[in-house]
């Protein structure tokens, strides 16, 4: 599909690069808005990632909101039963891990799981369909910038970081909420080596505190970093392999099928891991010592 068809003049390298390029918009130095000239610009916006993630988020809101609105205990529809299975699954997972009372954590877990699952699921759409469609649309309407279209939001590190940073803020919020600001600072500075404030130990205390702080900060920052990079890495690698398979010509058919079947597992698993780790981190943050 890749070497034949509409872009026969493309080399494999160009083909891959095209598939990994986001549709970006940014404000140039001269004050003009420009498409796809934003490499390295920190204020650039990946329009395709935002569009697809928002669309999928709204699909989640729409599907689950409709089920919630129409939910009837007496005569549940099959759709409601499906939604209930998902909700019940998340609810029991959260209950097993998080023992406190929180109105936020379970809905947060549900949102993360379903949203990430939907975003990952875009990976199973054949890699050329939507980009080619977008390219055609761009040619027809004159919006040439639609030449670039990356459809799997979770293969964009910005998207995964955006989510994990929100989770990170929640971790800090829950830590301060359950331990107080002092408790949070103490957790960062008085572990794992407890400094002594009596006698000669007071001289060593600042060094120990600084050491603890560096160690604990790394541990704290590693949480959102690993959360987002795990998801991004898995989905990016999966997408890249789909692109490489698409380059193979006829042989892509069995390979693509096999990888897609395997990817169903990855898609679900990564969504579950992201959700579960979020719950675990928040549980750790809100645990009293």
């Amino acid at each position: 599909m890749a070497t034949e068809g509409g872009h026969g003049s493309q080399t494999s390298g160009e083909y891959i690069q095209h598939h990994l390029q986001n549709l970006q918009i940014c404000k140039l130095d001269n004050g003009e808005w420009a498409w796809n000239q934003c490499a390295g610009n920190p204020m650039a916006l990946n329009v395709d990632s935002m569009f697809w993630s928002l669309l999928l988020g709204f699909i989640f809101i729409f599907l689950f909101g409709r089920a919630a609105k129409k939910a009837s205990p007496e005569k549940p529809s099959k759709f409601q039963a499906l939604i209930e299975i998902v909700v019940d699954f998340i609810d029991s997972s959260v209950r097993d891990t998080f023992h406190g009372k929180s109105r936020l954590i379970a809905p947060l877990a549900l949102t993360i799981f379903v949203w990430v699952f939907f975003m990952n699921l875009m990976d199973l759409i054949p890699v050329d369909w939507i980009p080619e469609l977008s390219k055609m649309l761009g040619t027809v309407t004159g919006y040439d910038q639609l030449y670039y279209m990356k459809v799997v939001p979770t293969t964009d590190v910005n998207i995964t970081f955006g989510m994990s940073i929100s989770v990170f803020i929640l971790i800090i919020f829950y830590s301060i909420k359950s331990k107080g600001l002092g408790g949070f600072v103490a957790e960062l500075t008085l572990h794992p080596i407890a400094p002594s404030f009596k006698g000669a130990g007071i001289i060593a205390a600042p060094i120990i505190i600084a050491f603890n702080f560096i160690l604990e900060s790394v541990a704290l920052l590693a949480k959102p970093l690993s959360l987002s990079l795990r998801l991004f890495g898995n989905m990016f690698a999966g997408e890249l392999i789909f692109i490489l398979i698409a380059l193979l010509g006829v042989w892509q058919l069995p390979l693509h099928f096999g990888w897609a079947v395997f990817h169903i597992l990855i898609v679900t698993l990564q969504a579950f891991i992201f959700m579960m780790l979020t719950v675990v981190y928040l549980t750790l943050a809100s645990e009293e010592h």
Partner: protein
Amino acid sequence: MDLNATIIGQSIAMIVFVWFCMKYIWPPLMDAIEERQTQIADGLAAGEEGKIKLDNANVESKKILDDARKQATSILDQANARANEIVADGKQDGQTEREQQLSLAKSDIEQETNKARDELRGQVSELAIASAEKILNREINKQDHADILDALVKKI
């Protein structure tokens, strides 16, 4: 994979989605699930109760059936015994009747016989007298005498 403002957009989107989910999706779904769970539990309990009731009713009906069977058997036995009794009674009655009739017939026959015998006796004696008269009348004739006696004998 350069980082850019998409992070901020995604974070805002996530906060809004989570807030919406927390406010409008999770509570009604949870309520529906919990309500149905209690309903299912109630239904199961009611089913269990019904089963116990059915078991009890089965035991009861079996008991009633057994009683009825027993009663029927006893009625049948009684009826059989009664029938035997009646037959035996009938036999006895017949026997008695027969004997009565027989003895009656016997006595009748005896009477008749006696009567006939008496008659015969009378006739014989008359004949004997008549024969004796005749013999007396013709005493002389031995031959006659014998003849008469023979005749008499023959007559008897």
